[in-house]
């Protein structure tokens, strides 16, 4: 299973990447594997103000529906509308075309509390 070193992770299985003050969020390879075939993604509206740990999106697989949590306080600035017609992108490319939304954090160092790849890998092993 693949956990890129340049990403940050949460125990609730989101990944985040910070670029030029914007944070891109998706679900980890482990999360998509556990969910199985994703059939529907419910995305937040652009412009929505969100809080850290707030449920902002939903990923539905054949098996179950899972909430996706914002890693930080901020504003949703863009969502990946391609997921509406191609939810399977979450399975095929969780770190690439399967990204979910972009957030403008309201404070710097927004991802400081998130895990690095090694920490996330350890957290999964602990849980399983």
């Amino acid at each position, binding site marked *: 299973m693949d956990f890129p070193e340049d990403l940050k992770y949460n125990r609730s299985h989101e990944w985040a990447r910070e670029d030029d003050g914007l944070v891109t969020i998706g679900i980890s390879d482990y999360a998509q594997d556990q969910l*199985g*075939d994703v*059939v529907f993604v419910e995305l937040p509206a652009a412009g929505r103000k969100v809080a850290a740990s707030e449920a902002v999106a939903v990923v*539905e697989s*054949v*098996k179950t529906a899972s909430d996706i949590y914002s890693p930080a306080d901020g504003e949703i600035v863009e969502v990946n509308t391609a997921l509406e017609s191609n939810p*399977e992108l979450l399975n095929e490319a969780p770190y690439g075309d399967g990204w979910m939304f972009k957030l403008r954090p309201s404070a710097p160092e927004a991802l400081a509390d998130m895990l690095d790849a090694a920490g996330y890998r350890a957290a999964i092993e602990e849980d399983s």
Partner: protein
Amino acid sequence: MVEFSGWAMPLQYPTGINEEHLAVRQSVGLFDVSHMGELSIRGPEVVDFLRFVALNDAGRLRPGRAQYSMLPNERGGLVDDVYVYRLADTEYLMVCNAGNREAVVSHLTRLASDYDCVVVDESEDVALMALQGPGSAVLLERLGDTDLTGLRKNGLLDLELFGQEVRIARTGYTGEDGFEIFVASTSADAVWRGLVTAGAFPCGLGARDTLRLEAGFALFGFELTGDTNPLCTPFKWVVKDKPFYGRERLWAASCPRRLVGLKLTQRGVARHGYRLYQGQQEIGEVSSGTISPVTREGIAMAWIERQFATPGQAISVEIRGQKIPATIVDLPFIEG
């Protein structure tokens, strides 16, 4: 792997539910459904017994034929839904749901005391596989060195497969052409491996559920329960007008809610227990739902108040606080 009625079963194989589902719709899939209960019911009065304990008329079956049926309880509901196979004049096989097996056996054994026949639970000795999909007949003809053109839907045939004695029935739970294969537990491994090696795609419980939903078949515990009156469902054709156990209650009941098919008009998954609305008025509840891997639409079966149970009726389903528009439709969702 998941625990299902005491059996360890795969929810899916590594390729995933969608691919398994499409394999069955387009070629051949193979399910291990050995968890199902198999009861041998036999004796001089077996026909009278089955006509009394089951809603369909097992007396109309000729040997070598099978039918879908249901077992009524004393309060106008159901003990289980079953498949009934007539093996010989005085010998039948009944396949029941794993989760209901003990209840079915004790219910039938109790009622059989008034008849000259016996109910024998053979579930532990019998394995069951379902080979399903448009390519299943060609595959089975090749492997069994036989011609299956004369074997119609619901027909039975004894066959040798990979050196094992098997009994096949042209039945299934997917809406496709296909066969259920009864085999001694000790031969199951050889038959499973042989079929997979020959090209059948292994399928798990997840695909079994999405396939049966598209095909409009009920799942006990969801569409059907101990309180379900089958006359309020699309499966009322099963109920034949003859004396049967609990008839008075079942026959007299009205249907404040009916079981219908539902299609979401925008993307979403209507899951078990989600509520149906007409405006602000709650009018029903989803029994099971998914996104159809074939049409990619949200589909569901649901219990809805009688006055809304008409194909074409627009309603909404509440999904996480939002009312998503939906339409009542005829079952099945796809034609096999």
